[in-house]
């Protein structure tokens, strides 16, 4: 036992030291915020001296991307019940896990079930009694000569256009002929032209070219010896980033025409995409990922502790934050940092029970009054409930989430043999979370990391584990004072302002957007570009759509990073 004990002790000591060091580094981060000068203008182009490229990837399509793509191609009334396996969160984003994900046989069955649902609905003939429209009439550009026989011309017409949208590039003639042949054989076997079409659609929807978003490269004529994404891969990267869905006909046409090969053409297409209502899908997709909202799929509150926090409440909490973000950043084009101090949000009747405010059916814009403790995203139920225990709040989880999600400051994991007894079974005199946490901090092994998280988490103690406001805990008024990296505050409004002005806040967003768009984690080579974009983001008033535009138009979005020499050697050997 002794060696094990020593080993554990050493680990804890090392972890504590690492946390203390990190705390010191974080504390030194507090500096003057960048001065915002020109607002609304385009961010400057990346200077020539800064390396701006990203690796070619092969990414598994996400569930939301799949659903958005199906809705865009076949219509929003196509119902898809799909629950694809979650990606592995990497460097703060699920999107990075998509480049490492595969499709085992069990998962393929899920894709196939979804594909079968979609295919059946695309060719259905409606139902007058159920008042369901005929999808085939709306989606098929032609009618077969006989509905119970094969019709190669009509099949080719439909499959050519649909295949191009699903595969995100034109089908080769050979491939199309193969599909038409398959549709014809199935039509003969099944005695139904549309059933033949459905089998091919189902096959397309589970083909690797649809399920995996592959970056194909070509020689870069402007940089001999290097490669860039081909126009279709660039179109897909653009579209999955800006719309969280596959490119539409207009974007593919721009790829076909060569427009995406020119700076002017790229700018026109990007501006068109940013002006599209589909941008909402892209913005929501990014922040859903960045804020870790996938955890809502498994989030539940103890109904005996929080009877009003039902599954419907939590779903609305997620939706509320996404609506707030999109409205603030895109509809109103406001400063990203002000998301953390805004009192404007959206309210639903279900959420009204948590916020204790009246709410009309549906979603309505809502303004918390001055003096209200609801200030910014940190005080929304999504953050407060997501980062808490099922039946109580958690200053540690909230502080950790704030550090990691919003400031990109990783907090080390606790040692494996951490003793929670002091926290889980507190003495009666420890009536508030602050008392319990302070007791916990008497252990120097714990204190190192908890000093990073808990002081800011304690500022949110006016909200219980469900996100409901409370003035006191067990009869004791809650003390919400604290400090964030040297900035002191006395209440939640002070914490929100400290986060809003934290110098790491904009840079963290830029880093996340950059990674999300390119599908690769930021490393040392990317730092100059990220720093440049962060500075430009600040100079232009922290307008999020401008940041998205700057990133997708920068070379990093289409220039391909050459493999490291070791990788080249390995690739050559395997070839």
């Amino acid at each position, binding site marked *: 036992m002794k060696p094990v004990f020593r080993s554990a002790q050493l680990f804890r000591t090392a972890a504590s030291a690492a946390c203390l060091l990190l705390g010191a580094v974080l504390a030194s981060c507090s500096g003057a915020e960048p001065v915002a000068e020109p607002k609304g203008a385009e961010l400057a182009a990346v200077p020539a001296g800064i390396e701006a490229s990203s690796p070619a990837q092969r990414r598994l399509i996400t569930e939301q991307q799949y659903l958005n793509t199906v809705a865009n191609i076949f219509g929003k009334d196509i119902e898809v019940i799909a629950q694809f396996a979650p990606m592995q969160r990497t460097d703060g984003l699920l999107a990075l896990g998509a480049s490492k994900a595969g499709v085992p046989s069990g998962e393929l069955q899920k894709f196939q079930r979804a594909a079968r649902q979609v295919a059946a609905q695309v060719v259905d003939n409606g139902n007058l009694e159920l008042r369901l429209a005929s999808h085939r009439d709306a989606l098929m550009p032609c009618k077969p000569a006989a509905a119970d026989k094969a019709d190669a011309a009509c099949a080719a017409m439909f499959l050519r256009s649909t295949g191009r949208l699903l595969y995100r590039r034109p089908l080769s003639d050979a491939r199309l002929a193969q599909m038409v042949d398959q549709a014809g054989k199935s039509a003969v076997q099944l005695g139904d032209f549309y059933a033949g079409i459905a089998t091919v659609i189902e096959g397309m929807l589970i083909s690797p070219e649809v399920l995996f978003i592959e970056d194909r490269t070509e020689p870069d004529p402007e940089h001999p010896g290097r490669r860039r994404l081909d126009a279709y891969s660039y179109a897909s990267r653009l579209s999955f980033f800006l719309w969280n869905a596959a490119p539409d006909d207009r974007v593919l046409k721009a790829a076909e025409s060569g427009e995406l090969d020119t700076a002017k053409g790229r700018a026109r297409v990007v501006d068109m995409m940013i002006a599209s209502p589909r941008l909402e899908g892209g913005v929501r997709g990014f922040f859903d990922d960045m804020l870790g909202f996938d955890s809502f799929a498994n989030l539940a509150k103890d109904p005996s502790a929080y009877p009003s926090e*039902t599954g419907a409440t939590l779903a609305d909490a997620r939706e509320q934050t996404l609506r707030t973000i999109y409205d603030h950043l895109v509809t109103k084009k406001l400063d990203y940092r002000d998301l953390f101090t805004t009192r404007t949000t959206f309210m639903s009747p*279900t959420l009204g029970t948590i916020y204790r405010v009246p709410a009309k059916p549906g979603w309505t814009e809502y303004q918390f009054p001055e003096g209200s403790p609801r200030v910014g995203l940190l005080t929304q139920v999504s953050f407060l409930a997501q980062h808490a225990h099922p039946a109580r709040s958690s200053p540690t989880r909230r502080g950790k989430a704030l550090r990691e999600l919003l400031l990109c400051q990783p907090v080390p994991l606790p040692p494996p043999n951490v003793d929670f007894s002091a926290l889980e079974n507190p003495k009666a005199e420890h009536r508030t979370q602050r008392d319990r946490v302070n007791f916990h901090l008497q252990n120097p092994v714990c204190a190192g990391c908890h000093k990073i998280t808990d002081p800011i988490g304690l500022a949110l103690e006016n909200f219980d584990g469900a996100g409901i406001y409370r003035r006191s805990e067990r009869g004791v008024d809650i003390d919400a004072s604290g400090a964030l990296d040297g900035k002191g505050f006395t209440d939640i409004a002070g914490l929100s302002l400290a986060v809003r002005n934290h110098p790491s806040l904009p840079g963290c967003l830029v880093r996340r957007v950059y990674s999300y768009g390119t599908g690769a984690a930021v490393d040392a080579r990317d730092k100059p570009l990220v720093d440049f974009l962060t500075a430009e983001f600040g100079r232009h008033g922290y307008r999020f759509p401008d940041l998205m535009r700057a990133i997708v138009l920068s070379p990093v979005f289409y220039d391909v990073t050459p493999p490291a020499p070791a990788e080249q050697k390995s690739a050559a050997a395997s070839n």
Partner: protein
Amino acid sequence: MTHKLSRTLRAVLLAGAAAFISAAAMAAEDYVPENGTIGYIVTDFEWQVYLTADNKEECAAGLNPWGPREQFKALYPNGGSVKDTHMAFEIAGWFPNAETPDKFPFYEVTGKKSYGLNLDGKVDADDFVSPDGKTAGIDNELYRVIGCIVNLRPPEGATAFYANKAVMEERWNRVLLELTNVDSMTDDDSVDVTMYRGLDNLLTDATGSKYLPGGSMRIDTKWGNKYVQHFKGKIVDGTLITEPVPYTVVPWSSFQLPTEQKFHDMRMQIKLQPDSALGIMAGYVDVENWYWQTVKSESTHHQSYGQSTPSSIYKVLRKRADAYPDPKTGRNTAISASLQAKMVQTFIIHAPGGPVAMAPASSPKPATASQQR
């Protein structure tokens, strides 16, 4: 209501109730609603009946044994045509006759205790006293009629169950109370109370069976104006006490049938909490309306659950009606009653240009309760 409970269970319940009352009293103690306004929504309605575990105190002769099945069997022991048996029996309920004597005995409440209010301000010999013995002169003749009918004795009796199932599942019967000009939820000598019909579903927890406070409710501004009623009141020791208003219509429903309850001289006594309220709406209910709503919205099948025979009930209802005589016949048209209402807090959303608190509606009957007593 008294039940045989184990000593332990009773102790636990008493302790829990004491804790609840204490916590609720603390919560209400210093509570002043924002802008002097607080809304409630009714989640449960129940015609108040004072019950004891063995029925002896209130029903000396026992509970009514002659339900539809029992009466039918006695009336038609040898069967007969559908017209002469089933249809004849149904017609007796649909076209009741108060003039002819009942062929079956009907057991009325014989006890002296009842819930309710002293509606006429007098203490008559046949009035009830409150279960705690503190209040005399309680007028609740409806209880005298229904108190020994199993179907109308909740929780076992199914009538209240189905009425409240309708509250959960339907929206026609959404009753809102809004208190305005409230300076204190403990003591306030003048508050305004307005009753509305709401539009939205009730808010429940994840189980779907527990109503939650804090929801929002729109007022029915299209079809709900007839249900808007204004009361003047006061709050005494946390209890809202309103003055009576001449005529109030309460939206009601049972078995998907939108109906109404019609009250003369309704007044309320409701214990208020920030998150909930519990109390009574008492007055003289229109006999014909009550009969058709309560008895005829149930099928014979449901009436048979608890020996509730419409034709028999009607005769006693008419006999015990104690207010609002018909000017032509002199027969009373209304009966004193007490309706328990359980509520949770809700935010009431007023639409621009929506209904305003109406002046108390005038009674459709010229007589007053005091005139006929």
